[in-house]
């Protein structure tokens, strides 16, 4: 619990830092001050256009967090809900939900990004929606399997015989038993969303190429890998650290199960 609180504390500080720290205008170029080394004026130095790299990284971080938040919210809420309802209802409802899960899983996020960006334009929010929809299927499958497992437990049978309503059993009793596993998956998934977003931004899909997304910065600075590696290393480090952070924050194996008991 202490480890988790510590990690969440760091995460809170990181988010507050990203959104509150004053930084320079990312559109301000200074062609006389290109490739400047880190200094008190430019913490991470400047890029090939003389822009402040720290300001670009902060803005890219804000956009990445927005994408992760929107994507995770959509896929976690919709996927968990549909997966649980499908497992509980069975029959036609289960088949339809499973079809939806299969469908969104097999459509590559790149294709979805092309379609959505053509229809609704480029933005970080739209990228979040694309990843959110694309990941629903995995949450459906996971929630479905976990709920099916729970449905075989006697306590669910006991609740059915007691006459608890479907929504009370599903969301009041089954969900608390599966939510930790879903959260662990959510952490891993958030990591992969960070990487996916960086990947799509790198190839210029799903988001505006003029925005300072970490993937976009990587693309723009790739040619300076040998002459000014700092420009490439900062975005790479940011992507890896954020992905690792999500992975470790939610990776909690301590799940209270029916098998664990201090007496028997």
């Amino acid at each position, binding site marked *: 619990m202490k480890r988790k609180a510590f990690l969440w504390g760091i995460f809170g500080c990181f988010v507050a830092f990203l959104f509150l720290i004053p930084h320079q205008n990312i559109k301000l170029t200074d062609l006389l001050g290109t490739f400047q080394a880190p200094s008190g004026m430019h913490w991470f130095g400047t890029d090939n256009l003389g822009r402040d790299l720290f300001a670009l990284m902060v803005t890219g971080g804000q956009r990445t967090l927005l994408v992760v938040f929107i994507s995770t919210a959509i896929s976690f809420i919709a996927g968990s809900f549909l997966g649980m309802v499908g497992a509980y209802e069975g029959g036609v409802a289960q088949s339809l939900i499973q079809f939806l899960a299969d469908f969104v899983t097999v459509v590559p996020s790149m294709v979805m990004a092309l379609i959505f960006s053509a229809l609704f334009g480029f933005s970080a929010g739209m990228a979040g929606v694309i990843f959110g929809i694309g990941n629903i299927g995995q949450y459906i499958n996971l929630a479905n399997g976990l709920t099916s497992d729970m449905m075989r437990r006697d*306590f669910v049978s006991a609740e059915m015989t007691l006459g608890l309503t479907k929504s009370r059993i599903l969301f*009041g009793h089954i969900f*608390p038993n599966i939510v930790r596993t879903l959260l662990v998956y959510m952490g891993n998934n958030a990591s992969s969303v960070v990487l996916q977003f960086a990947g799509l931004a790198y190839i210029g899909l799903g988001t505006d190429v003029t925005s300072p997304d970490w993937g976009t910065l990587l693309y723009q600075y790739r040619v300076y890998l040998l002459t000014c590696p700092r420009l490439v290393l900062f975005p790479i480090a940011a992507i890896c650290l954020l992905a690792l952070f999500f992975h470790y924050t939610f990776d909690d194996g301590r799940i209270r199960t029916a098998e664990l*008991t201090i*007496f028997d």
Partner: protein
Amino acid sequence: MEKNETSVIVNKADSSGSADREPILEVENLNVRIRGERHGKNGIHILHDLSFTVREGERWAIAGESGAGKSMTMNALTALLPEEAVELSGSIRYRMEDGSRVDVLSLPYRERQRLLARQVAVIFQDSINALNPNETIGRQWRDTVLLYRPGMEKIQLEQHLLARMEIFGVQGGSGTLAQYPDQLSGGMRQRIAIAMALESPGRILIADEPTTSLDAITQRSTVDFIKTLLDKSGRTLLYISHNLGILQYMCDHVMILRNGAIVEQGEAAEVFAHPVHPYTQELIRETKKIMG
């Protein structure tokens, strides 16, 4: 699992004095077949033409070896068999509080579950699985009480729980209510599971091997405890177990299941003293050998 063609249902004369009481549960030609691709074109026939009548206040034992269909019978009686996976035929008629008789198999699945929630109280085999592992005992118990007494005041609810804890021999007061199931002993958990089941107004109590996972001493105290509760409440009992000793101690009627069919049923004292069907004879003989 196909029906044993040599099986014979033997109905023994009833001298227990309950024959003039109103039937509270009548089961006629109950068949259960499990469907699904894995089980072949015709599925698997699990229960074969079960017919029995349970009268108000009777205590029925459902006995038989593992895989005989005891728990499946309980699941059929309590609407715990998902309709998309199972085909049920025959009739299960419950007498409602207003005296009417309802064949629950004629009702849609969810409606059947809703109706039976007020007719039947169920105690499950393993209390550690019968209680939600991620919720405190108090929260689960409060939820159960509020289900049948919605709008109960918080203070009244706490008083009710403490009073029930005393009746059911659950020690520790509010401290126990704040604990999770895995923090309590097996005996304590089972008492709580029984107490929660008996919050249901159901006049029929179905207990599916409620003492199997307990040690001999806790087993005995739990059985005595259920017996005392039944003596006080007058509820009808269906007790499922393969432990003939406990069944003989608890019940006044017995049905012996084998391969999903009833091979013998009647008054417990008579069946245990003079078993007619060869399978019942063997079951009793083997039990006696083990018990010495």
